[in-house]
């Protein structure tokens, strides 16, 4: 079997700080989609999400005093900073009301002949996720980004028990929203 060495986030972080821009490109490619999706879900505005992404990524890379001594440490730190920057951004700009106004409307239930069509189900899932309350939406996106329960609890600064409770609420919420598409 081939044994291809893969750079860890922590290794790439160290190389970026030494001026290696190829390491930056690799690190950016790993997070551009998921971190941006997380921020977009919080801010509901593309320009705001780009600004916060920029600030959070740069601030994380400048964290020279932080020692990433285990796998996943960089990821946890990045999401934690991103969340805090996003919260500050929301507080300072009072964007909350605009965010609520942009929530997608509930999809009309499927007709009897096309129930469980994958595309419709996924479209409904997108809508259901977009309508999740903010604390549950955070949990959904962080878990979808591949963070472990411990890492999510660290990012959100909540006890593990609270996180598990939110996970159950989130799943129940989505299950209820998707009932018309899954019942047959």
């Amino acid at each position, binding site marked *: 079997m081939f044994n291809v060495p893969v750079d860890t986030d922590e290794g790439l972080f160290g190389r*970026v*700080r*030494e*001026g290696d*821009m190829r390491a*930056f*490109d690799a690190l*950016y490619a790993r997070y*551009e*989609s*998921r971190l*941006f*999706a*997380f921020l*977009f*879900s919080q801010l509901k505005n593309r320009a705001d*999400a*780009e600004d916060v*992404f*920029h600030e959070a*990524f*740069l601030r994380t*890379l*400048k964290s020279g005093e932080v020692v990433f001594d285990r796998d996943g440490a960089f990821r946890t730190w990045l999401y934690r900073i991103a969340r805090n920057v996003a919260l500050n951004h929301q507080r300072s700009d009072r964007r909350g009301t605009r965010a609520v106004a942009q929530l997608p409307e509930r999809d009309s239930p499927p007709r009897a002949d096309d129930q*469980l069509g*994958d595309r419709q*189900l*996924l*479209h409904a*899932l*997108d809508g259901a*996720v977009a309508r999740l309350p903010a604390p549950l939406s955070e949990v*959904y*996106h962080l*878990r*979808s*980004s*591949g963070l472990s329960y411990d890492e999510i609890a660290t990012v959100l600064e909540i006890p593990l028990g609270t996180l*598990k409770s939110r*996970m*159950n609420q*989130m*799943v129940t919420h*989505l*299950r209820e929203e*998707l*009932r018309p598409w*899954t*019942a*047959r």
Partner: protein
Amino acid sequence: MDCSVISADLIAYHFATCDDDARARIDAHLLGCTECLRAYLAIKHHTDRGTSLDARPSDAARARLRAAVAAEFQPSLGARAARALRRPIPLYQSLAAAAAVVFVAAAVAPMLARTDSMPPMQATGGERVDTARPTPENLSFY
């Protein structure tokens, strides 16, 4: 088990919030039901990807961040040259440099030796003639 019960639990199954019994039942069902398996895989792929939106910063935003990172961390030309000079030379580079010196010395040494063995140019009268600066006196031998 009924497919409608399974499909309603696929989200919980994906996020691992269902109990062990429910998980075992869904596992068993997915092994035998292509339709539910396809629905589950679609949900898994979709959630793992984050969202169906084009969820990534624009190229301009990426370029702006890249420039900021380069300005912050990429050293100047002088600093890079100083760092290259401070860098320890690997053994193979030292050996290559030594071999190059020996080769050049071996090529040049015979030429130098030949130059040393040539007799100085002498005039017929035994006087040294400076042909570079001819004077009426040293032109007499012509």
